[in-house]
């Protein structure tokens, strides 16, 4: 009986908060101050990695496939249009859009583990390049860049 109570209590404790997850997330203003620190990670990428070319750049499906992958794995933190959330920086800024594809690929592969960005090497290499293609296709958002400069 004791075990039965323990099981139901633990399941109940986990069930309660899970209901809240059904509620839609309110949009959260990106945290630009933290972003500036995160973007410096792009500058730390080794030159050899930066020089890598995107093997998917001529693949007509790469952006669409990358968008699929982005929606599945990245939207939660980076926002639906890559505009950024409180959890992770925006991707439609010059720091990212002007970065070499190899640098973005390197960040995807290695993560920024101490700042909360997980390692994504579990996605096969072609899928990471497809993600790079999609991220580069986002372009800069003028609004985001203006706010950054403020």
């Amino acid at each position, binding site marked *: *009986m004791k*075990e*039965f109570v*323990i*099981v*139901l209590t*633990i*399941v109940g404790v*986990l*069930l*309660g*908060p*899970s*209901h*809240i*997850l*059904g509620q839609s*997330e*309110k949009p*959260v203003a990106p945290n630009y101050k933290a972003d500036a620190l995160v973007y410096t990670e792009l500058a730390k990428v080794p030159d050899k990695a930066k020089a890598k070319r995107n093997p998917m750049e001529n693949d007509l*499906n790469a952006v*669409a*496939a*990358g968008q*699929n*992958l982005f929606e*599945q*794995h990245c939207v*939660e933190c980076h926002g639906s249009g890559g505009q950024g959330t*409180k*959890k992770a920086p925006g991707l439609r800024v010059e720091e990212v859009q002007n970065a070499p594809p190899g640098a973005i690929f390197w960040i995807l*592969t*290695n*993560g*920024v*583990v*101490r*700042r*909360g*960005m*997980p*390692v994504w*090497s*579990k*996605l*096969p*290499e*072609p*899928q990471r390049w*497809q993600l790079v293609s999609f991220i580069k296709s986002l372009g800069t958002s003028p609004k985001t860049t203006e706010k950054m400069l403020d």
Partner: protein
Amino acid sequence: MTFRLHLAFSAACFLLLLALCDAGHAQESPYIVTYDHYLEEPGNLEVEYFSTFGTQRGGNDFHAFWAEFEYGATAWWTTELYLDGQTTFQDSTVFTGLRFENRIRPLKREHFINPVLYFEYERKSGADKILKEVEGHDVELDFLVPNAEARKEHNHELEFKLILSSTVKGWNFAENIIASKNLSNNPWEFGYALGASRPLALKASAKRCSFCRENFIAGVEMFGGLGDRHSFGLSNTSHYVAPVVDWNLPSGWTLRLSPGFGLNNNSHAFLLRWSVSREITGFGAAVNRLFRGHQ
């Protein structure tokens, strides 16, 4: 009472899974025993249900099951809670214990071999049959003890693993070295688990689809005991090899299937495992809202 417990446990796990409506898509590893170096994404909770059907020579076959709640505390630390039970056919159904596990990634970047440190506390009864790992001199004969007797034995164990894992050209290779210590006066026991897996396709499709090849990961794992501090080696140990396949659905569900085969006379001849899991994004933020009233 035991049947009701089994029913309540299974129903509670199932209801919990159904209630979790804000699911994320995960690229889950297909392994059931072996760990690779990938941790849960920060703030996400993965709820998993696993079943193991096992044959038993000289006794009754069994169905062991466990629920797993895996939470990404940070990008370098994942914590998990397990609740275990089993039904031995023509005997009874019993709750067999709980486990609290932590995995820590010590290195910041990806390397050719990536280590992860694993620590687990287990509070389980002698009736535990989930075979989540095999260590020491665990053999098939141990499972012959009737549940009523076996559940009287209570074990408190600490388990440590060194997880080494590499991903090369879509292939994942994982090696786990296991050391466990029963906190009563028993010697250290050792075991191993090895795994290799690869998605059926490396490129993603341009359209979301359930049956695309990249959603399937196939592989094989092998695991077994390595004796204890006094008798290290393969003598009187059990070993298994198990093909594994997992299916990551775009809806956020992951299904796994793994038939396992005993490699010597000390092993169960056949194990059939399956699991269903779902990842819930933003669980940590939801708990924050629950206790703070805002985010």
